[in-house]
């Protein structure tokens, strides 16, 4: 019998949520700890987690998903949840990038996503800089876009780091190692002309845009969902510009897919490690993660090579 990695992760998250619900007092204490600097109109006692405890239902993160179905007992909780006001600052990110959800499992996953997003932005900055320095970019419009996009990704990284701090985490400050090793470095070795440079940039922008759109459906607070798409929408604009350079259709779909989001191996955990390592590693043996569209696939042979496809680029590295 085969289990998909996504299903395993879902089950793990559900287990974490159930555990949190069972450890009521502990969770409340942790919730207060994690929410120490959060704004909450009613204080910790009215947080979503506290309400979940009082109502005896899982938190929103704890909606148990089995085979695509959603157990909706916690709809009551969601209806009772009272998120704080949205306060968008000049930076484009909400000044208070958290609301009231204090479930530790939620916070942990939120921080994973924020760290991962930060690592993508830092990787984009370094990749654009490498492209600029490569001497392969000769079109002034492409050069102008590369500089602007590099700077915008730098701003995005800063905003995400601030959001990480606001959410109670330690800001991540490094490029995404998994994508650097499995996608960018191999691609950089093969850059031969301006189009190949633009193609690599487009792959990264696509991975970022689709990861953020997907994350908007995963983050536990409305404020963080809005914040991530305040950036994701811009990455999508980058996509459109880069596609134009390649004479491709600039708006190829009516709804942004999430098939090309980064694979879970690229997630950055609390220890700064990525993906499975952050959750304790794979159980061994061959694993394959294939997104719905089939365009983002990672296959890891047991102790062997890793093949990663992101944004249409495929690379294989020795294990």
């Amino acid at each position, binding site marked *: 019998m085969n289990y998909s990695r996504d299903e395993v992760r879902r089950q793990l998250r559900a287990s974490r949520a159930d555990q949190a619900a069972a450890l009521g007092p502990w969770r409340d204490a942790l919730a207060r700890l994690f929410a120490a600097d959060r704004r909450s109109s009613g204080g910790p006692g009215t947080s979503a987690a506290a309400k979940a405890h009082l109502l005896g239902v899982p938190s929103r993160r704890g909606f148990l998903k089995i085979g695509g179905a959603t157990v909706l007992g916690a709809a009551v909780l*969601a209806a009772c949840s009272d998120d704080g006001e949205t306060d968008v600052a000049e930076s484009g990110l909400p000044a208070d990038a958290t609301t009231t959800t204090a479930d530790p499992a939620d916070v942990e996953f939120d921080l994973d996503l924020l760290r991962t997003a930060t690592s993508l932005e830092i990787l984009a900055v370094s990749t654009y800089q490498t492209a600029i320095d490569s001497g392969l970019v000769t079109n002034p419009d492409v050069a102008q876009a590369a500089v602007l996009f590099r700077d915008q990704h730098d701003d995005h990284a800063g905003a995400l780091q601030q959001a990480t701090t606001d959410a109670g985490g330690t800001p991540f400050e490094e490029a995404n190692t998994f994508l650097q090793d499995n996608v960018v470095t191999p691609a950089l070795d093969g850059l031969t002309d301006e189009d190949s440079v633009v193609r690599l940039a487009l792959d990264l922008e696509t991975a970022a845009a689709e990861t953020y759109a997907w994350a908007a459906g995963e983050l536990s607070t409305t404020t963080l969902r809005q914040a991530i798409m305040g950036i994701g929408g811009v990455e999508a604009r980058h996509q459109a510009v880069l596609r134009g350079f390649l004479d491709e259709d600039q708006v190829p779909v009516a709804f942004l897919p999430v098939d090309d989001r980064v694979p879970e191996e690229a997630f950055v955990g609390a220890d700064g490690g990525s993906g499975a390592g952050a959750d304790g590693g794979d159980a061994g043996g061959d694993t394959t993660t294939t997104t719905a569209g089939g365009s983002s696939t990672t296959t890891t042979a047991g102790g062997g090579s890793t093949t990663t496809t992101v944004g249409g680029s495929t690379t294989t590295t020795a294990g």
Partner: protein
Amino acid sequence: MEITTRALRQLADDVDDQHREAMATVHEDLREVHFGETSRVLARSRRRFLRDAGLGGAVLTLGSTLVPMARLMPAAWAQETLSDGDLAAFAESVELAAVEAYSAAIDTGLLDGGVVDVAEIFRRHHSEHADAFGAVASDAATGEANQAVLDVFAPQIGEAADQDALLQIAQDLENGAAATYYFSLGVLQDRDAALAAATVLPIESQHAVVLGQALGQDLEEYVPTFQGQEGALSPREYPVNG
């Protein structure tokens, strides 16, 4: 940064083909998001959708018209509750207003062939979006364009002197739609609903890029550093039955 008419037409054709492909399942997908097993989650209060402080007499230039900011900022959204159906119906009405706006722009005769192709494609996109949201809204759907939105844009289109003026209006509309979806992400509580909004916002943003390039705008004009909520449309100020 500019784009040729031929290239624009080619891009429009490509967009159309892929849009049609992508729309094949959107009706069912959106219905599932809003009325499937997750629907009860979406049935909660939408007070946050209607909250925030107003901005007094501030104004924002929308095309050639100065519009009171209070009409554009979700900050002015009323202290009332909107159901999922209400929200979907609002989105439907805005999309249909966009359809009419593009039709009116085409009917002016001021657009050249290549740009007409683009306008027709974008109009069709909005029409299909409206169909999708109408299906989601179910009984709340009106099938009518948002008159209050048209009251803002139609006069601008009628008074447009040339193609660039019309393209600018279209870009304002697309940017306004992106801002509206952005703000909605700070309101919708359900993850699936948020995901739906998050997959639409980028497309409206990309439309704005294409229009900005057709206008010969500077790169920074159509690629801001962050998506914001300026220009977002309020369902109270632009009611479905206007």
